[in-house]
């Protein structure tokens, strides 16, 4: 307390105000509630009615150091950052007392450091003040109110759809093909010429009497597609054998793998269909006889 800063007037105030035990206790009790050294410094300003606008940092530093020393005297545990601040304030005070010329060139001057601290105190104080002022403002749902039943602006979502021609065509072709493959499977089954079918066709043709005609020529009309060719030839051959057995036609072949010739034996006046059916029945009966 020997190093008296410039503002003696306030210092005297401080001396005069020298904390009574009561004051001391109030601050002691509050220590837990302080949020760091800056907070404590502000509290000291307030307790000692120090005007932040005309703040003398030297004076405040004196009080802070005094306060911390007092606490130490009472053997209170003091958080490190309060002690750091105390040490820094001691350093600052000594800097402030040094004549300007003696200050090291690179280091910030004592007055600059003091100004910085003053700035931070003022800024923190201002922010506290503004927090309170904010809360003092009329607030929504407290002092003023909004429409209690807002009808809302109904939003009708209008989807706009997107599709490209290519996608459309691909979708069409794709499904037609898929569906066709399904049908294709079924159709394949039907594409087999049954012997009965071959015989019906053959009988229909043999309605006209034929003198040794090659069978391949007779069925040429039906030989569409490779798949059909095999089944048609096979079934037709089977049918001719049946018909020959039934005595409807005669067959002749000159050698292995040479054309098969056919000749009608019974060029009767019956309708082809009936002829086709009747012999079939006969065949069934005949088989039964076998």
């Amino acid at each position, binding site marked *: 307390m020997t190093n008296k800063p410039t503002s003696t007037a306030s210092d005297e105030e401080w001396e005069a105000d020298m904390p009574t035990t009561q004051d001391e206790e109030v601050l002691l009790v509050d220590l837990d509630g302080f949020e760091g050294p800056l907070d404590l410094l502000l509290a000291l300003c307030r307790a000692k009615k120090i005007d932040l606008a005309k703040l003398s940092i030297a004076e405040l530093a004196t009080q802070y150091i005094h306060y911390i020393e007092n606490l130490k005297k009472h053997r209170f545990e003091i958080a490190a950052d309060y002690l750091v601040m105390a040490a820094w304030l001691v350093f600052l005070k000594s800097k402030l007392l040094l004549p300007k010329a003696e200050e090291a060139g690179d280091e910030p001057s004592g007055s600059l450091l003091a100004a910085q601290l003053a700035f931070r105190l003022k800024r923190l104080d201002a922010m506290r003040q503004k927090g309170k002022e904010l809360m003092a403002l009329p607030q929504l749902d407290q002092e003023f*109110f*909004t*429409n*209690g*039943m807002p*009808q809302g*602006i*109904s*939003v*009708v*979502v*209008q*989807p*706009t*759809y*997107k*599709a*490209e*021609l290519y*996608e*459309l*065509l*691909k*979708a*069409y*072709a*794709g*499904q*037609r*093909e*898929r*569906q*066709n493959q*399904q*049908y*294709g499977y079924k*159709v394949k089954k039907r594409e087999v010429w049954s012997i009965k079918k071959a015989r019906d066709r053959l009988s229909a043709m043999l309605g006209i009497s034929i003198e040794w005609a090659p069978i391949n020529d007779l069925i040429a009309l039906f030989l*569409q*597609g490779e798949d059909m060719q095999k089944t048609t030839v096979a079934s037709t051959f089977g049918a001719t054998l049946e018909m020959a057995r039934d005595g409807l036609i005669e067959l002749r072949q000159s050698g292995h793998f040479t054309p098969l010739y056919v000749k009608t034996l019974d060029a009767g006046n019956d309708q082809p269909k009936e002829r086709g059916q009747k012999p079939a029945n006969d065949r069934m009966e005949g088989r039964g006889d076998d």
Partner: protein
Amino acid sequence: MTDAAKTGHESENDALRVLEALLFASPQPLGIKELALEFEEGVDVAQLIEQLQQIYQPRGVHLVETGGGFAFRTAVDLAPMLTKYKKVQKKLSKVALETLAIIAYHQPVTRAEIEDVRGVQISKGTLDVLLETGWVKMRGRRRAPGRPITYGTTELFLSQFGMARISDLPGLGELKGAGLLDGALPPGFEVPVPSDDDALRADEEPLFSEEELAAEAELGAEEDPLRYKSDEDEI
């Protein structure tokens, strides 16, 4: 006006302001009895409400009696202005796209016929989506048991897909040429030549018979979903 009313003018205006704020901020309509609790005895709340209603009568917000009390509501005539239309772009699902394609090529086509081509059933939702796109319309009904609805494409469909006319849709050869159809197609595989002529075909009849239209007019148009849809198109 009596003298009393004149001297009370200011307080009456205050009362009106309070009434206005109370009604505005309330989360539900307020009845006269409820409101009366907020004022000194002798204040004629009913009369204040009437005054307030008159003040708001020409405005965009009205004070109306609703749900057992009074509440501010936007003027009914402004309802259309308070609806926002938000456009959301959507992509058609695969099923919808396929169905659309069948309708385009095979129109006029019934749902059963679409299913026949697809080999799978389609949900009503799929057709609804297509109708919503505005690319597909109900044309009429097939003259057949059950009178099924026939579907066809619209002019919007043409403009969407950049065609001048429906016959611009590529035929079998073009689809093959574009590599969209496999070369190994069975004989007899055909791609129909589409037509979207508005005139009903011989096997079609109008969507509604005259008797049906008459019956519906009696029932009230709003309840008719078909009618509703056509309304939507107009928006």
